[in-house]
């Protein structure tokens, strides 16, 4: 077998794969944040909690009702998205006329409540969610083994990201959305119900987080804190990419996942902080972010 810089290829490709998996989640979550930020102008701190809710609702559907993975993929984003819509109508919508920072504080408070409630109910040890039978097994690629489920996660994430990009950039609904981002008053004057558009957008962003949660459930243990630390890394991803462009958010997510994976191979101690270091460099060189427009 050949070796790269003294690293056995199995370890290298294994970590790259893990990086790509992490990147899939970074991409899905930062995409949701970007979509919500585009229209609502708030940073959804609850995003991590909603990702956790996605994983938990999938587990509950299976455990209490016997509804399996494939139905969960469809049902969970809808259920969690609906809770998001309720939150937006009852609370978040009251803050649009205020400084955006209040939105951050409100959603932070909501995240604390949701995480605290789940911790009270389920403890912190976590619940196991098994891989659906169709995706058990591995592919032998010759130089490494690729678990089917992980391949599925990457494919699903890419498809969902591209689908979202297509809807926002290429369809009529997306055109309304982008127009409302630029000038909500004018779009309202054309007879489009902007508040409803805002509510549905929030629900959609939350649904994306929940979908990421379902995809994550079989890989990571389903526990109340699974979103809390992840969301901070996703914030750094968002700062690096800038929230101006959908594809930018997706590319940054996958790219940083890969870089993190590479760091695990060559300098394991630095893997937890590498994304933050990159963020510092980007702030020095291009403060608006790689794909960002100046605020």
């Amino acid at each position, binding site marked *: 077998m050949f070796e790269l810089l003294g690293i056995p290829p199995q370890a290298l490709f294994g970590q790259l794969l893990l990086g790509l998996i992490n990147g899939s989640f970074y991409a899905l979550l930062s995409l949701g944040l970007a979509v919500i*930020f585009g229209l609502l102008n*708030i*940073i959804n701190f609850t995003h991590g909690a909603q990702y956790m809710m996605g994983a938990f609702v999938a587990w509950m559907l299976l455990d209490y009702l016997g509804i399996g993975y494939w139905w969960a993929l469809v049902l969970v984003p809808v259920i969690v998205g609906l809770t998001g819509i309720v939150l937006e109508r009852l*609370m978040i919508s*009251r*803050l649009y006329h*205020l*400084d*955006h*920072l*209040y939105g*951050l*504080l*409100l959603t*932070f*408070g*909501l*995240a*604390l*409540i*949701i*995480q*605290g*409630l789940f*911790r*009270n109910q389920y403890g912190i040890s976590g619940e196991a969610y098994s891989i659906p039978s169709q995706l058990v097994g591995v592919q032998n690629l010759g130089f490494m083994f690729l678990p089917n489920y992980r391949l599925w996660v990457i494919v699903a994430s890419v498809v969902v990201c591209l689908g979202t990009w297509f809807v926002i950039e290429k369809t009529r609904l997306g055109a309304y959305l982008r127009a409302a981002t630029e000038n909500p008053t004018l779009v309202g004057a054309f007879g489009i119900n902007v508040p409803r558009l805002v509510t549905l957008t929030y629900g959609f962003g939350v649904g994306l987080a929940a979908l990421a949660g379902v995809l994550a459930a079989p890989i990571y243990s389903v526990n109340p804190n699974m979103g*809390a*630390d992840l969301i*901070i*890394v996703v*914030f*750094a991803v*968002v*700062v690096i990419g800038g929230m101006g462009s959908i594809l930018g958010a997706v590319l940054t997510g996958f790219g940083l996942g890969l870089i993190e994976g590479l760091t695990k191979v060559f300098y394991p*101690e630095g893997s*937890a*902080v590498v994304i*933050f*270091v990159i*963020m*510092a460099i980007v*702030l*020095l060189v291009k*403060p608006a972010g790689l794909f960002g427009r100046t*605020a």
Partner: protein
Amino acid sequence: MAAEVEPLERQVAATAGAGGMPRHHQLIFAGLLAFALVAPFVLYPVFVMKVLCFVLFACAFNLLLGFGGLLSFGHAAYFGSASYVAAHAAKVWGLTPELAILCGTATAAGLGFVFGGLAIRRAGIYFAMVTLAFAQMVYFFSLQAPFTGGEDGIQSVPRGALLGLFSLESDRTLYFFVLAIVFGGLLLIYRIIHSPFGQVMKAIRDNEPRAVSLGYRVQRYKLAVFVLSATLAGLAGSTKALVFQLASLTDVHWSMSGEVVLMTLLGGMGTVFGPIVGAATIVTMQNYLAGFGAWVTVTQGVIFVVGVLLFREGIVGVLSRWLKKPL
């Protein structure tokens, strides 16, 4: 956020400009000091010292948020790193408490300079996310670095003897040392807010483009107030390490950053005395709810939500409106 506190601030400026501290502020400071002098004989001293440390932490944070208009979501980084360094200095290097606290505070100042310098390149929501991300970096560093003791933290830190002469082992003696530090810190913050520097700071908060057009180097002011806030947060953190004889991951965790935001929001951001009330309330609440596990988190979340939706002025903000006096 600025628009709501603006009228009060104008009054503060007017009265303070007329000649030193306004009379009712003098009375409040005197009342607080009198209360703090009696407190250790009535209440458990370690508890009151905890309140004092968080009072200083919240006031330092409020200097940045309430008067500088900058929401840092990562102040635990300065509080916690100072706590670690002070604990390490006292335990491993065997420094006297005042030198250990100085080491911790200097660390926080240095970190504040580096992170603040980077974070002020973005504004608003991005600023909050950048500070949070840097704080998380400090957290991961503290988790892995050899001298922090990982999950255990640095335990049984010696309180030592002040200047090598006066032993601080007894809670009562330490109490007055802590009180002196915290009260000194509060007066310093008060002075900063009402100095010409503080007036420029508030001008930048209220209308940045106008401050730029008047020729102020806005970025330098922002960095200065960030470093001041981080330094004072570090002073609070170092002192806390001596009080509890412990520095741990709790001090650098993002939930600590959230707590200090909550204290300031509850008490009233942009008020002088709000964070004092907020910190005392939250620490007392944690004390009573300590046995209920995650319900503390839920309660804090509820206070956040209610505070943001209905109660944005905070306790002291509302009092101040009723009394028609800036507090």
